[in-house]
């Protein structure tokens, strides 16, 4: 029959919530369930990780994105560890002294597990060298040979001096040393000739003395000139002797070590350098005190107080070869999986420590410290994207290392170009690892957009979903997930019904009866709390009631603001009617989220109309309390009005819409259907039943569209009605397309079942307005008119009347109109 709108029946209680059917489950408690080894509902992310780990190409690092609470860390880590267990341990790396250029320490690669042995071998070598060299240089043989060399110098010096002295004596002269140099002076009877006596010498004698002195001076001069040369010769002889003795002592010790490392050419080369250096720097060993004595004096340019540090091995990476069973918690013969929870520049790339010495900061290769990249090299490194991005220069440093495929440890200030003091430039270590960055989606999209290098380095995104599609199979897996979580947290076993309630809550969290929340951390919280309440009841098994209690208590703990807001309504501070009927006034619903807790709140929306030029005033927008989406919703109303009614006439009204007593701003278009109802009511001057609240957005065709937070909105209005008393008339209009999202509270369902509360699904404005006004909406007949007494007829008639009125105005009172 034309003029009638289909539908309008409230939803049955069964459709308001998905009730988990536990009858098909073949377990009594979670004790009967196996642990869940796989990941449910994250096939896309898991495949992405699988792919990235498997591909042996650079740049295939992973960005695991998704909201918090999905256990991305746990999933990634478990996956990587399983993968790493099948991979060989990577090489050990150590830094050793570069004897030619001390500022550029060398990096040496060793097979896994041999680094520690090498370090110990070198330490033992230095101790042995110390003992052997000291005894060699204290030996009778060495001392005698050295004395012979030194004696030779003395003899040469003395011989030349005595020669001159003897010649002087012969001539009655003495060689005297003064503070300014040597001098010859005449002597007589073993005493210097006083100046007075000399003056009385005959002229010839004085001249002879002068001539003699001159000749002797020349001879002495010649002898003196040779002295530095002799000293140099002596020093060289001593050095040659030292080297000869050292060579003998050092040779067999280093030779023995070389045999053990014959398969490692790098070590062999290093040992060769050590041998040369020890022979050239025997003094370093000889200066060392005997056991128990104090430290040797610090040498300039040497970091640390012990000059033998130059022969140490700084083992920066040590792994364990497969097959060994070390007691430490190290990688045990497999690829490392490292999580760095404080990824600063230094902790990623390693750093160089300095030590204060005599007021200066000094360093050497022993003070190079490894970073997370060193430790994870050859394996996997997990990092939190946000942390990497917020630590100064850490992101730049990480990218540079990945691009260069090597770890270059340098001071942060060097990288930033802020420091020019001397430091070390350790040889870079080749880098080959997979990095997994974990972060939220926004971060991923921001990086993709703003960092052109990001895409090259993190080619794989593992996108974690926050919801899991519900199916009988997935429900069972989810139950096993619950069992696993319960065991991991050492909780009491959960009964079958309790598990069912957990699943229902997971669906509620997902805001969808056909999906389950993947946020395991909030589920784990629920399990822990339910376990606690079961404990207070003295139960051994967690029951459905315990889960319900945990949910109720969670809500109660976060409920203060909601309760105060509701009080404002029940005490009449905020005006909301739940009975009677009014023109141009309707209850809209909005959702507030505070600290992870969401709740619905009714708001009064009102509309007033008068003759005008078709302008629709959205008061929220005028005062900038309304967001763009809200404004969009209001403009759609205008489109609906002008096209749906009297489309051949200008829209000749002026309407204003407002959220009453809203002081904090609104956004979203979920109130647009409510606004339209209020507007139609105002135009048609037909009252709306105040026992209803409405949610849903509307398009230009009058179709009602889905909105978010449907459960919270219904419950928000229900709570108010329940407080004031349920009459059986009260209810909520929701978009039909939201029915599948319904996961309402048990008390709401109970009220619906008892016919004390109703929930109407609507697909169109016409359907909704019939429920709200009790009048038929009316469909346009073949004659192009709406049926008499229908609401649409009234609306159109009013609009036509307004348009006529306006035209009359325009004709008769044009000036007024202009003014």
């Amino acid at each position, binding site marked *: 029959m034309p003029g009638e709108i289909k539908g309008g029946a409230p939803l049955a209680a069964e459709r308001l919530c998905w009730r988990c059917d536990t009858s098909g489950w073949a377990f009594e408690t979670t004790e009967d369930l196996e642990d869940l080894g796989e990941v449910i509902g994250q096939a896309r992310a898991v495949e992405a990780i699988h792919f990235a780990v498997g591909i042996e190409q650079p740049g295939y690092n992973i960005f695991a994105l998704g909201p918090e609470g999905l256990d991305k860390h746990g999933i990634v880590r478990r996956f990587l560890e399983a993968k790493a267990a099948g991979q060989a341990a990577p090489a050990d790396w150590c830094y050793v002294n570069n004897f030619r250029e001390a500022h550029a320490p060398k990096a040496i690669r060793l097979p896994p597990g041999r680094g520690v042995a090498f370090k110990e071998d070198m330490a033992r070598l230095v101790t042995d060298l110390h003992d052997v060299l000291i005894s060699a240089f204290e030996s009778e043989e060495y001392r005698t040979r050295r004395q012979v060399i030194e004696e030779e110098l003395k003899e040469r010096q003395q011989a030349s001096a005595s020669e001159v*002295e003897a010649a002087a004596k012969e001539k009655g002269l003495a*060689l005297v040393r003064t503070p300014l140099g040597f*001098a010859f002076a005449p002597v007589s009877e073993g005493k*210097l000739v006083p100046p007075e006596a*000399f003056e009385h010498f005959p002229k010839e004698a004085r001249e002879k003395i002068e001539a003699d002195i001159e000749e002797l001076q020349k001879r002495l*001069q010649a002898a*003196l000139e040779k002295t530095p040369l002799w000293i140099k010769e002596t020093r060289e002889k001593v050095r040659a002797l030292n080297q000869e003795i050292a060579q003998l002592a050092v040779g067999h010790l280093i030779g023995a070590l070389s045999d053990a490392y014959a398969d490692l050419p790098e070590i062999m080369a290093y040992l060769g350098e050590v041998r040369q250096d020890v022979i050239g720097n025997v003094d370093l060993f000889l200066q060392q005190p005997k056991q128990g004595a104090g430290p040797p004096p610090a040498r300039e340019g040497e970091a640390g107080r012990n000059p033998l540090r130059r022969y140490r091995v700084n083992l920066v990476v040590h792994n364990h070869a497969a097959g060994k069973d070390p007691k430490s918690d190290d990688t045990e013969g497999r690829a490392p999986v490292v999580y760095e929870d404080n990824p600063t520049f230094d902790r990623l790339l390693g750093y160089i420590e300095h030590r204060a010495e005599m007021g200066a900061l000094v360093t050497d290769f022993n003070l190079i410290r490894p970073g997370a990249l060193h430790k994870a090299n050859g394996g996997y490194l997990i990092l939190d994207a946000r942390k990497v991005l917020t630590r100064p220069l850490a992101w730049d440093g990480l990218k540079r290392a990945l691009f260069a495929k090597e770890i270059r440890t340098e001071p942060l200030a060097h990288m930033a170009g802020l420091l020019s003091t001397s430091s070390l430039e350790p040889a870079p270590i080749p880098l080959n690892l997979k990095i997994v960055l974990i972060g939220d989606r926004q971060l991923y999209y921001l990086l993709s957009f703003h960092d052109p290098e990001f895409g090259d380095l993190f080619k794989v995104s593992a996108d974690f979903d926050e919801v899991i599609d519900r199916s009988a199979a997935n429900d069972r897996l989810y139950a096993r997930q619950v069992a696993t979580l319960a065991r991991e947290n050492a909780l009491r076993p959960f009964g079958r019904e309790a598990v069912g309630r957990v699943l229902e809550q997971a669906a509620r969290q997902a805001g969808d009866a056909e999906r389950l929340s993947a946020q395991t951390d909030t589920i784990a919280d629920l399990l822990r709390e339910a376990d606690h309440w079961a404990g207070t009841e003295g139960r051994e098994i967690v029951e459905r009631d315990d889960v319900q209690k945990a949910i109720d208590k969670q809500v109660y703990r976060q409920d203060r603001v909601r309760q105060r807001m509701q009080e404002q309504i029940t005490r009449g501070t905020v005006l909301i009617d739940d009975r009677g009927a009014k023109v141009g006034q309707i209850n809209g619903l909005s959702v507030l989220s505070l600290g992870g807790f969401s709740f619905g709140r009714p708001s009064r929306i009102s509309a007033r109309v008068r003759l005008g030029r078709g302008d629709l005033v959205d008061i929220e927008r005028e005062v900038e309390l309304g967001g763009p989406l809200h404004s969009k919703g209001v403009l759609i109303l205008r489109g609906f009005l002008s096209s749906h009614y009297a489309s051949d006439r200008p829209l000749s009204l002026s309407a204003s819409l407002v959220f009453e007593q809203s002081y904090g701003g609104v956004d979203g278009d979920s109130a647009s259907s409510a606004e339209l109802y209020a507007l139609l009511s105002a135009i048609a001057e037909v009252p709306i039943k105040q026992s209803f609240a409405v949610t849903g957005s509307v398009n230009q065709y009058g179709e009602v569209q889905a909105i978010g937070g449907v459960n919270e909105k219904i419950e928000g209005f229900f709570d108010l009605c329940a407080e004031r008393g349920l009459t059986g008339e009260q209810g909520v209009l929701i978009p039909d397309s939201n029915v599948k999202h319904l996961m309402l509270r048990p008390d709401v369902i109970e009220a619906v079942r008892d016919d004390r509360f109703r929930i109407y699904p609507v697909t169109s404005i016409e359907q909704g307005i019939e429920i709200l006004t009790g009048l038929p909406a009316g469909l346009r007949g073949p004659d192009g008119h709406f049926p008499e007494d229908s609401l649409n007829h009234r609306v159109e008639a009013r609009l036509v009347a307004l348009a006529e009125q306006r035209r009359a105005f325009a004709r008769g009172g044009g000036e007024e109109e202009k003014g």
Partner: protein
Amino acid sequence: MAAEAELALRRILVALDVSEQSRAALEAAARLAGGLNAELVGLFVEDSDLLRMAELPVTRLVGARGTGALDPAMLRRAFKVQAAEAREALERSAEQWQVKWSFRVTRGSSAEAVVAEAGDFDLVALGRTSRPAVRTAPLGATARRTAMAASCSVLVSRGGQRAGCPLLTLYEGGTRALPLTAELSRVFACSLIVGVLAETPERAAALEAEAETWLRESGLRGRVERLDTAEAAAIHDLVKRRDAGLLVVDQRGPLASKLNLEGLLETQDVPVLVLR
């Protein structure tokens, strides 16, 4: 053992120039003064002989770079510089060993000036030679003259005293030098070798027993050795054999008094303390 007046070193004079050997003497003297709580006085002698020599018209300086006139004024300035240097060295050593110290400069013939000053002191310390590069004589004129003529004890150093090496003291009976010897062994933290000197084997055996008893009773680390002859060469041998770091000779001993002191000082590489 007959009781005799104990030997004590309360005032120590150290003859300073800028030579290595003088530094060694200063080091030994300062350490000794620190250990014995003695006063340390540094003496720098401006050699008047050299000043007179500078006045000779024929005197020329010879250095590695050539020759030139020896100007007395320049020589006096050089003495001042050296004196200041010696004073600084003295101050450093005295501070290191926490010794009460003073410094004086005198002018005169080196040896005579030192001997003259030594009269007021218990010990005079000096280097064996001050001009080791040219002097062929192993014992310098100042050291020889001082060792022979000074009325007080003399410490002659060539090199430094090697740490940890034992102290060798000659013993012919008598208790005069024993407390000081024990004190020295404590100051230098070294063990003792008592070298027994005697005319007859019987006397030597008795002295050995005495020395053993004394070591034991004083709780000192050490050993007793017999010297066959009171000759410089025999003493030198024992010093070498036992790797002694300091030789102490009490010249009041009947045999030691006859010892060729000059020969002993010439042959010894270790510091020699001659007690009087």
